[in-house]
C-alpha cells in the first residue's frame, strides 16, 4: 500500500466517521468520488424531475376550471421551477454546471422521475398529482432532510415545506371532485386508478433488488429503505382515499393487524421498466418539450450574454 492509497483510506475513514457522527458534509470537504457521483446523479435527477414535472401540470394550466384553481396551480408550478433552480444550484456545489446537467438530460443520459411520463387526462389528475405524487415525494424527501450532504439536506428542508402545502392543495381538488357531480366523482376515481400504481413505483425497486441502496444508507444519503418508505406512504394514504370515498385499485389491499400495516398487491415492475425504457405515453413529448424550450431559447440566452458583454465592455471603456 503506497502513501497515496494510505492517505486516501484515512480520508475515507474520517469521512465515514463524520457521517456516522451525523455531521454534515459540505462542498469544500473531502468526499469519496463515488459519493460525489452518487449525489450528482441523484440530485440532478431530482432537479430534472422538478422541471419536467412542470409539464404535466402545465398541461391543465390554461384549462383550470376556476380562476382560483388557476392561480393556485400557477403558483404551484412556479414553486416547482423554483425547486428546480434551487436543486441545480445545490448540485453545482459538487462541481457540475447547470448546462452540463441539461446536456445530460437532453441526451437521455440523466433521468427524471418516470412518473412524469404519464399523461394528465382530466382535471382530477391535477388533484391526484398533488395528493399522491407530491405525497410520495414528500415521504422520500423528509428522509432526505437528514441527508449527510449539507446543501442537499438544506434544499430538502426548504422544499418539504412547500411540497406539503402542494399536497394539501391536491387533496383539496380531489375532495371537491369526490364530493361533486357524478361525472366529477368518475374523474376522481379514474385519476386515482391511473396514478396509484405509478406512484408506488416512485419509491424504486423492492429492497431485495435495490443494488445501490446499501451504499447510500451507509453514506447516510439515504435513511430508509425503498420498501419502508413505500409502506409508510401506503399507510398514510389509504385512510385518505377512504375519506374521499374513492377506491384504491388494488384487490389485495387490506389492513394487517399483525404487522400493523396495510398489505398491498405486487407492483407490476414490467410496466415500470417499460415506461422507463420509453414506452410511457409521454416520454418523447416531455423530453422534446424540454429540448425545444432549451434549443428554441438559445437565441434569447445568446442575446442576454452578448448584451452583458457589450455593457461590461462599455463600462470598461468609460472607466
Amino acid at each position, binding site marked *: 500500500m503506497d502513501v497515496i492509497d494510505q492517505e486516501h483510506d484515512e480520508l475515507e475513514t474520517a469521512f465515514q466517521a463524520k457521517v456516522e457522527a451525523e455531521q454534515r458534509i459540505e462542498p469544500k470537504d473531502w468526499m469519496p468520488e463515488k459519493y460525489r457521483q452518487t449525489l450528482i446523479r441523484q440530485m440532478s435527477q431530482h432537479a430534472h424531475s422538478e422541471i419536467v414535472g412542470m409539464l404535466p401540470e402545465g398541461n391543465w394550466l*390554461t384549462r383550470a376550471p376556476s380562476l382560483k384553481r*388557476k392561480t393556485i396551480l400557477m403558483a404551484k408550478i*412556479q414553486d416547482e*421551477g423554483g425547486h428546480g433552480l434551487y436543486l*441545480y444550484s445545490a448540485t453545482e456545489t459538487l462541481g457540475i454546471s447547470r448546462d452540463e446537467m441539461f446536456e445530460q438530460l437532453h441526451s437521455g443520459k440523466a433521468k427524471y422521475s418516470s412518473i412524469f411520463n404519464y399523461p394528465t387526462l382530466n382535471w382530477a389528475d391535477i388533484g391526484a398529482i398533488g395528493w399522491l405524487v407530491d405525497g410520495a415525494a414528500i415521504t422520500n424527501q423528509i428522509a432526505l432532510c437528514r441527508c449527510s450532504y449539507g446543501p442537499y439536506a438544506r434544499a430538502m428542508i426548504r422544499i418539504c415545506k412547500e411540497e406539503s402545502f402542494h399536497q394539501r392543495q391536491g387533496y383539496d381538488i380531489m375532495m*371537491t371532485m369526490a364530493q*361533486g357531480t357524478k*361525472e366529477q366523482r368518475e374523474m376522481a376515481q379514474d385519476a386515482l386508478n391511473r396514478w396509484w400504481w405509478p406512484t408506488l413505483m416512485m419509491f424504486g425497486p423492492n429492497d431485495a433488488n435495490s443494488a445501490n441502496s446499501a451504499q447510500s444508507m451507509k453514506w447516510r444519503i439515504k435513511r430508509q429503505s425503498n420498501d419502508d418508505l413505500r409502506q409508510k406512504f401506503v399507510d398514510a394514504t389509504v385512510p385518505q382515499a377512504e375519506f374521499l370515498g374513492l377506491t384504491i385499485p388494488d384487490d389485495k389491499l387490506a389492513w394487517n393487524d399483525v404487522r400493523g400495516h396495510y398489505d398491498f398487491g405486487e407492483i407490476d415492475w414490467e410496466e415500470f421498466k417499460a415506461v422507463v425504457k420509453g414506452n410511457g405515453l409521454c416520454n418523447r413529448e416531455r423530453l422534446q418539450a424540454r429540448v425545444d424550450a432549451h434549443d428554441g431559447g438559445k437565441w*434569447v440566452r445568446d442575446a442576454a450574454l*452578448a448584451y452583458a458583454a457589450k455593457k461590461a465592455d462599455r463600462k470598461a471603456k468609460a472607466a
Partner: protein
Amino acid sequence: MTDKDMRFDYLLRLGDNSLILGQRLAEWCGHAPMLEEDLALTNIGLDLLGQARMFLSYAGEVEGKGRDEDRLAYFRDTKDWRNLLLLEQPNGDFAKTMARQFFFDAFQYLQFEGLAKSSDDRLAGIAAKSLKEITYHRRHSADWIIRLGDGTDESHERIQGAIDDLWGYLPEMFDMDAVDDAMLADGFGVDVAALRPVWDDYVNGVLAEATLIRPADSWSVRGSREGKHSEHLGYLLAEMQFLPRAYPDAKW
C-alpha cells in the same frame, strides 16, 4: 347605458385585459428560454390573474346579477369580451411575447397610476396595489427589449420584427369612447388619450437604448370595446372555458 352599466363595462375592460394576457403567459409555462424566465413569466402571470380576479369580482358586484369572477371568466363568448386586441394576439416567439408585454406594461403603468387616484376607493385600492407589481413588470420587459435589441443580430431582427408586427394594435389602447368619457367625467376612470405622449416618451427612450426603430404609424386596428376581436380570441376561450362549459353543474 346607465352609469351602472358603464362602470360594469369599464371594470370588465380592466379585468379582461389582465385575464387574457395572464392566460397567454400561462401558455409559456415550462417552455421559456431559461428557467429564471419561466419563473418570471409565471410571476407576472400570477399578478395579472390576481388583478383580473379583483376587477371581475368587482364588476360582477356592480352588475348585480349574481355573476362572480368565474361566471364572468368562463361563460362569456367572444363578443362580450373587452380586452385589447393586442393582448389576445398569439405568443409567437419570446420576442413577440416580450414586445406585447412591454407595450402593455408601459400603458398599464400609466393607466393604473391614474386609476390609483380614482374617486372610487375600491378601484383606487386595486390600482395602487397592482401598481407595485406593474413597476416590476415594466422593468422586466423593458430590460428584455434592450437586451434583445442590443444583443445579437438575430435577437435584434426578431424583436424589431415583433415590434413592427404589433405596432398597429397599439393605437386602440389610447382610444376614448363614450364609456371612457363618462367614467372620466365621473372621476371613476382615466383619460387614456392623454397618456399617449408620456407613453411615447417612455417607449421611445427604451427603443432608442435598445437600438430599435420606432415603426411608422402605417396601419391600426380596433374594435375590442364593441366585442369585435381578432379570430384568435375564440380559440383561447374554447380552451380556457372547456371544463366549466362541459360540466356546467360542477363546482371546482
